Each structure stands twice: as structure tokens, then as C-alpha cells.
């Protein structure tokens, strides 16, 4: 990111002292430090990743740091969100973050954006910054950040964490791949647990967020080899880094040769998180889809959660279904393989949805609810089945 020395303010004596160890580095020097001072970086999300990103960018002397977050500090944040302390519980995160970052480095400007990032405000927000660092915690916002970065031509420093593993890359750089080149379709709704549901080791965002800060700083300096086209996967328990090469997908709907996404869309709907009638969205399989998969020989465990007297009337036993009535599910969890792909059904789909949520809480991840239950199966697949 070259700078115009005639319009960039010089470093003060205090700043020269503060950045002394940078100024003697071959790849930074005065020119690099002035680039950092002139740089404007937007950090989306002031959480586990946003904390180290904000702290290191501030300490490094990035001249303007924007923070997007609308949350308040919660006690459960403190084991990983090192921007905040005990006395911040209940405060808006941005209030606490600005105090902390300004204390880390009073020579920089920290700009609060106390809003939820949306398709309506993202492009306008991004316009004032040179690059965007993603510290968000959900898939719709990640696709939104990606698309907004591609559309506005800003590099997207990606990082994500889950339990003991993390990922880092730089997307949406010129000629490089974007998030969608790798993750072409969002995951089925509800099947990837959040850190709130599955836990995260507190130090993990420290590792991944620091790498994001590093990539942002290298990009500003134009130093070294960036992670453009490389996805780094970190396994904290094995202490192992793995690297996957990714190329831009010419057919990518956003950054490809003939893009079909040319403006921001509804990302909640894109990720299947906007269910009809306000109900929570569950992974559903239609009777026709289930029949197709059974005919194909897919290993599916079909669990009927109705009562024994209903089973007597009609059942899917010929397809290997077994009966575990809803009220017995907790006691009989041991009968269900945690790694198996399980299709739950009842009469019309209501009870099986409840059991699905219960199994999900118990750690099962490969679950389907038969849409419309055994009645829909009778209507659409097997009319010989008794209806009741």
C-alpha cells in the first residue's frame, strides 16, 4: 500500500520512540511505519478474534481502526476476549474497546461503529477503509463480509475458530480467491455448532487473531508472502499447521468471470436461516429425497419417535426403521451411534423436530427430520401404507 509522502504526516518524536523496534526492521523502517499510520483497517466483530486483532493493530500503529460490534461484554466472553476485563461486564463492547485501544496507543484513531453489519450498511462502511478483518461468529455475516469485500475491492483477512481448530486466509485480493471460491455453498442450517454451543479454547482466538493481525500488517507494508490463495488450518491439540492451496474459481458467483451476485443479498436467507412463520429452521428431508437415498443404498438410521400403538398401524420397518418413542429418547440415547446419519420421523413431523433438537443438544450432528412425517411418506412414496 504505497503512500504519498507529501500528504502523509511525519512521525512525531514520541512516535519514533514508540515504534523504534519497527523503524530498525528492514521490511518496515520509516516508510513502512508511515504506511501503517496512513492505513485504515475495519475490524468486524470485537470478540475473541477482534480482541487480539485490535490490540496488535493498535500497538503496531495502524492509523485508523474501525470496530463494528453492537454487543455488550458478557462474563462468558472474558476467557478469550482479552480486550475486556471484569470491570467491563455489562458495558457496550465498543466503549470498553476504545478505552483500551486508545490506552494501548494514543497516537491512533479508533472509530466505533455500534451497528450490526447488514447488506444495507456494509458497502458504505467498507468505503472508508483499506482492508477488512473478519472476527464475526456466524456464516451469514461471513458471506456478507466476503461479498462486500469483493464488490468494493478490499482485501478480506479471514479467520475463524471452533473448539481447538482455526482457519486463516486472505480472500478477495486482486486475482486471488474469495471465501465463496472455497466454501461454495453455506452449510446446512444448524449443523455447524457455534462456539457458544460447542465451546472454544480461550487461547485459540489469540493464535488465529494474531495471525490475522500479522496478515493485515504485512499487506499494508507489502512485506513477505501473503496468505492470498492459501488457507492455513491450525490444530491446537496437535500443534500442527496445515496449508491448503486455493485458486480463484472462474465460475464463482461473486468473483468469477461472469458474476451473478453483483449486489449484496439477504445472507440469512442464503444460509437457510430464515424459516417460514418465524419457526426455527431444522434440517429436513422430503419423503422423495429419503426414498432416493435409501434406494441408492446410503447408510441411514431411521428412527420412529411415535408410540408403539402408532407403529402397529404403519411403520417404515421394511426400510430398517426402529421405534424409540419420544419420551424414551433420553434414556435410550446409547442405542444411537453418534456418527451415524439419522433420519427422525413421527406422524407429521412435529415430535420428530423436538427429538431432533434434543439429539442436536446431545452432540449428534448428522440429523434429518422427515418432512411431513409418515403421512407424507404414505402420500408421496408408498400409498399402500395405512394412514391414521
Amino acid at each position, binding site marked *: 500500500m504505497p503512500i504519498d509522502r507529501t500528504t502523509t504526516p511525519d512521525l512525531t518524536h514520541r512516535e519514533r520512540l514508540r515504534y523504534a523496534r519497527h523503524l530498525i526492521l528492514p521490511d518496515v523502517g520509516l516508510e513502512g511505519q508511515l504506511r501503517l499510520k496512513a492505513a485504515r483497517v475495519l475490524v468486524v466483530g470485537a*470478540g475473541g*478474534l477482534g480482541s487480539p486483532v485490535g490490540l496488535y493493530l493498535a500497538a503496531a500503529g495502524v492509523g485508523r481502526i474501525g470496530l463494528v460490534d453492537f454487543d455488550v461484554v458478557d462474563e462468558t466472553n472474558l476467557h478469550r476476549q482479552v480486550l475486556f476485563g471484569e470491570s467491563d461486564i455489562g458495558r457496550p463492547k465498543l466503549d470498553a474497546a476504545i478505552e483500551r485501544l486508545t490506552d494501548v496507543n494514543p497516537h491512533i484513531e479508533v472509530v466505533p461503529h455500534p451497528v450490526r453489519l447488514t447488506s444495507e450498511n456494509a458497502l458504505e462502511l467498507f468505503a472508508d477503509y483499506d482492508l477488512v478483518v473478519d472476527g464475526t461468529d456466524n456464516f451469514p455475516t*461471513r458471506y456478507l463480509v466476503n461479498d462486500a469485500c469483493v464488490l468494493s475491492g478490499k482485501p478480506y483477512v479471514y479467520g475463524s*475458530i471452533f473448539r481447538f481448530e482455526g482457519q486463516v486466509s486472505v480472500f478477495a485480493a486482486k486475482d486471488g480467491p474469495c471465501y465463496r471460491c472455497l466454501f461454495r455453498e453455506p452449510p446446512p442450517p444448524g449443523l*455447524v455448532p457455534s*462456539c457458544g454451543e460447542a465451546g472454544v479454547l480461550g487461547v485459540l482466538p489469540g493464535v488465529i487473531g494474531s495471525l490475522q493481525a500479522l496478515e493485515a500488517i504485512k499487506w499494508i507494508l507489502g512485506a513477505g508472502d501473503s496468505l492470498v490463495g492459501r488457507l492455513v488450518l491450525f490444530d491446537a491439540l496437535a500443534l500442527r499447521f496445515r496449508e491448503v492451496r486455493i485458486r480463484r474459481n472462474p465460475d464463482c458467483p461473486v468473483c468469477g468471470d461472469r458474476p451473478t451476485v453483483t449486489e449484496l443479498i439477504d445472507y440469512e436467507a442464503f444460509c437457510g436461516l430464515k424459516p417460514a412463520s418465524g419457526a426455527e429452521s431444522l434440517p429436513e428431508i422430503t419423503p422423495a429425497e429419503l426414498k432416493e437415498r435409501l434406494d441408492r443404498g446410503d447408510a441411514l438410521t431411521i428412527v420412529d419417535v411415535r408410540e408403539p400403538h402408532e407403529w402397529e398401524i404403519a411403520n417404515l420397518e421394511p426400510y430398517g426403521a426402529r421405534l424409540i418413542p419420544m419420551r424414551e429418547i433420553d434414556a435410550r440415547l446409547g442405542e444411537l451411534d453418534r456418527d451415524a446419519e439419522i433420519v427422525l420421523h413421527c406422524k407429521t413431523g412435529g415430535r420428530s423436530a423436538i427429538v431432533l433438537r434434543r439429539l442436536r443438544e446431545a452432540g449428534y450432528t448428522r440429523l434429518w427430520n422427515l418432512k411431513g412425517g409418515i403421512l407424507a411418506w404414505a402420500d408421496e412414496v408408498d400409498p399402500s401404507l395405512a394412514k391414521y
Partner: protein
Amino acid sequence: MTQATIEITLNGEARRVAAGRTVAGLLGDLGLHPRLVVVEHNREILDRARYDATEVREGDTLELVHFVGGG
């Protein structure tokens, strides 16, 4: 009866897996939901629609990347 196996590179490490598997079959053997991983097969990201038709052969390189969303 011993099942025939082939050697592939899976996530950077040599590994023996059952011969004659498709990518979909291999994911099934590994207990992975096909919609929760991205598969890079011999350095090309594979469209999910091709998991069923793509055979895993001796010497293939596969990288599996999970969806990770937390921050």
C-alpha cells in the same frame, strides 16, 4: 477375506483406505457429512454434485476442510 486398499494422501498424511470408493463413499467411511466439508481432490476443489461420481484412486491427494464459523 481381506479388503483391497489403496494409499492416498489425506490431509497431508499417507493413509490406506478401501479401494473402489467414490469421494462420497470415502466421506461416509470417515463419518463426515458431505455438506459440512469442502473436498479438494488432487488440488482442485470438487463440486459437491460430483462426490458420487468421482472415484478415489491410488496416489490421490485429498484435503478436507471443515466449515468453521466461530469468532
